[in-house]
């Protein structure tokens, strides 16, 4: 055997010795300590990930509760404004009131348009708003002087549309309040 081959065999033998030593490493306390640390590390990583997921879910749900409460407050204010219509209301006054109601209502209901519990009522509310706009446009005065000649014309034109709007807003308000309660109950049950 040439010296180079003999050297290679010696090296191989040393490697095999080390492999055999490592194969019996489970017999040593260092092996078990390292394994324990590894498993503990895995457990804590999993636990941290789960807690982060739960915290995110809780934050989302809290945000949704706040949103429902905001919508409920906004719709209550709109319902109060709808009651401000009176027989001597002027065209400009009715137009401003309707614009404000329309803007506020459309802003708060738009995120819930696809909600299966609310979409029917939201559609009715949109239709009622459109009908009121249409009725109001039919009493746009030909001149300011002429508006005073027919003092209750605006009221007669929009009275029933406002009554419809009031009813639909009240029904929608009820649905949002119920949603808020159901949501709170589901959250408390966890």
């Amino acid at each position, binding site marked *: 055997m040439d010296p180079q081959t003999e050297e290679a065999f010696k090296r191989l033998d040393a490697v095999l010795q080390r492999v055999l030593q490592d194969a019996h490493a489970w017999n040593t306390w260092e092996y078990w300590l390292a394994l324990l640390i590894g498993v503990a590390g895995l457990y804590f990583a999993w636990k941290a990930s789960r807690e982060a997921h739960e915290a995110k879910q809780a934050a989302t749900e809290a945000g949704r509760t706040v949103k429902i409460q905001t919508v409920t407050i906004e719709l209550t204010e709109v319902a109060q404004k709808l009651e401000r219509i009176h027989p001597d209301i002027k065209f400009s006054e009715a137009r401003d009131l309707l614009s404000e109601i329309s803007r506020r209502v459309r802003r708060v209901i738009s995120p819930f348009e696809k909600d299966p519990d609310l979409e029917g009522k939201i559609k009715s509310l949109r*239709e009622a708003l459109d009908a009121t706009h249409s009725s109001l446009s039919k009493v746009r005065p030909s001149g300011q002087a002429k*508006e005073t*000649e027919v003092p209750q014309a605006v009221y*007669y034109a929009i009275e*029933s549309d406002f009554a419809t709007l009031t009813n639909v807003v009240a029904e929608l308000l009820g649905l949002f309040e119920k949603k808020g309660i159901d949501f709170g109950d589901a959250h408390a049950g966890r």
Partner: protein
Amino acid sequence: MPAGNVAEIRKYLEEVIAATNAGKMDWAQANPTTFFWTSTPPRGRLVIQRVEKTVPRRLADGRMIATKVVHYVFQALDQNGTAQFSASGEDIDDLNPLLENLYGVAETSMSRKGLEFLKSILPKS
């Protein structure tokens, strides 16, 4: 409203329609759906308005649809603009066709006035 009063209102409305058709009452337009006539000397005003309502109606299959219903409102105002008399075709169904007729003749009266003005400003041939 008592039936006797309704009959009396019908009589007055028919008189107003006849006077308008005869060109004795000139109506003015306050807005696209309201006409008014002012007495001379100005002791009061008559107002006729077309009101359109959207009401829910249930179909035979149970579905709800929105239907448009038209009625007319007639008012007699004093010189301060206070309504002394008011009649709505919504409250008194029988009156609605007559009020519709009055609205039609008031609209025609306005349109006739407009055409007369147009004729007056055109160059004479």
